[in-house]
């Protein structure tokens, strides 16, 4: 009986030993002085030392040089403090000099009388993850910088182009004003084309300036009433609403975390489009907002001419137009501005439509502090 029992016990001990040595985490124990008293294979493999080389050495010897003194002080503190030891990240040096970032979990070892006799530590190698996190952060920073540069470029370009264009435009207009009808019909026509071209270019540059300002001259995010944003959008559209006989239905709209001026501009552009692209009948426009788990989903539905789904992406690009200037004037920047505003608010914008069946433009705004229905 006794012999059998001890065989079982020794088998269990062997299994435990294997588990300890080959566990997929690095494991070591230190005594109260910080000296390594036990270390598993996984840790030896990770650091490139043998167990014999590690046992008996102070653990801080395996950390990067400039953390060794601090580590020694930390261990002294951790050993005797009453609270659990929080996980940490430390840099260890492999035998070949390569620095590894390890995630470290520590627990105090107590003897039968509940006295602290050391610390047991498990460690995970997060060097790879750390590197990719850093690479990602760097790429994100680069992307943000190049985006900001591009916006700045568009702003400066459109701003500086305005000056010479103002000259072209003013003097062609002055020509037309002074000499209309005196230089012959050809001259009148040429001047008219020059005036028209300069005016259109001015409109484009102005819009480009507005577009680039969405990013460069933006307002602060705050608790913004979308009721009020809609109110000011409708006030700005009053002439178009009255002229077209548009009827606007509105559901309850929430307070959202947004740039209030931009929210109003977004609604104004969408409602303005709904009025502009009408289908003979007076426009009926529905403005609503749905409460989704992580975002607010706004929609502007109309009974206008609708859009072929194959253009559903293109219409949100800068200066993309689907109609000729005579039927529907405009530069084609409105929806691009909407897209940029929605994206600045952590949201998306899209259209659901079929030709002749009206269109529903939807956009989302990420929920934030101070939102309420």
């Amino acid at each position: 009986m006794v012999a059998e029992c001890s065989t079982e016990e020794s088998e269990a001990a062997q299994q435990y030993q294997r588990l300890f040595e080959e566990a997929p985490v690095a494991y070591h124990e230190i005594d109260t002085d910080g000296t390594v008293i036990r270390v598993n294979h996984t840790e030896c493999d990770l650091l490139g030392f043998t167990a014999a080389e590690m046992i008996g050495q102070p653990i801080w010897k395996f950390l990067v040089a400039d953390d060794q003194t601090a580590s020694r002080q930390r261990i002294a503190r951790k050993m005797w403090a009453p609270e659990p030891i929080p996980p940490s990240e430390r840099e260890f040096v492999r035998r070949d000099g390569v620095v590894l970032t390890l995630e470290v979990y520590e627990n105090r070892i107590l003897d039968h009388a509940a006295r602290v006799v050391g610390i047991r530590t498990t460690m995970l190698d997060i060097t790879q993850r750390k590197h990719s996190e850093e690479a990602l952060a760097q790429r994100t920073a680069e992307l943000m910088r190049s985006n900001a540069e591009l916006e700045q470029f568009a702003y400066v370009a459109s701003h500086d182009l305005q000056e010479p264009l103002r000259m072209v435009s003013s003097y062609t207009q002055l020509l037309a004003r002074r000499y209309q009808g005196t230089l012959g019909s050809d001259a009148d026509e040429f001047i008219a084309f020059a005036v028209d071209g300069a005016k259109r270019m001015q409109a484009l540059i102005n819009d480009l300036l507005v577009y680039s300002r969405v990013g460069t001259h933006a307002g602060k995010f705050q608790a913004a009433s979308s009721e009020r944003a809609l109110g000011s959008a409708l006030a700005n559209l009053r002439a178009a609403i009255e002229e077209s006989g548009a009827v606007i239905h509105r559901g309850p709209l929430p307070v959202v975390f947004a740039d209030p001026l931009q929210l109003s501009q977004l609604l104004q552009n969408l409602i303005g489009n709904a009025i502009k692209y009408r289908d003979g009948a007076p426009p009926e426009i529905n403005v609503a907002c749905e409460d989704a788990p992580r975002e607010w989903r706004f929609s502007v539905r109309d009974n206008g001419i609708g859009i072929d789904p194959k253009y559903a992406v293109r219409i949100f690009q800068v200066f993309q137009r689907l109609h000729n200037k005579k039927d529907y004037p405009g530069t084609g920047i409105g929806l691009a501005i909407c897209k940029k505003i929605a994206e600045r608010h952590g949201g998306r914008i899209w259209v659901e439509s079929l030709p002749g069946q009206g269109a529903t433009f939807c956009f989302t705004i990420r929920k934030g502090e101070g939102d309420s229905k």
Partner: protein
Amino acid sequence: MACNTSPIEILLVEDNPGDVRLTVEAMKEGRVINNLSVVSDGVEALAFLRREPPYQDASRPDLILLDLNLPKLDGREVLRQIKNDKSLLRIPVVVLTTSPAEEDILRSYDLHANCYILKPVDLEQFLEVVKSISDFWFSVVRLPPDVRGVSDAWCANEVITH
């Protein structure tokens, strides 16, 4: 006002010849009767106002139209010097610029600009603005009496230094 009989003296400080001509044309269209003098940078502007060579015979302006972005000496600095010069500070300065920047507007008023006008991009509006400037400053407003008539008072050139 007694001064209405003599022509109005305007100093235009503007470096872009296109803008100068446009202002001249606008005044023609608005039938503003005036003597318009033009200087094209900040150094010339101050020399003109202080009657330094080659401007010994310059007449004292009733109104200054000042662009902000000027070569050599910036319009803001010209404004500062005018408003710090006891012999010049009463001459109304109209800042006429294309800059819509808030800091330029605030800075100009801080420096005691008499008004700040954004140059309209559109010709019709520009003509309108030039006409309103002259209507306002030469019909509505009563200018300080020593600006006109007492022509020698300002030659004392009492300069406030800071």
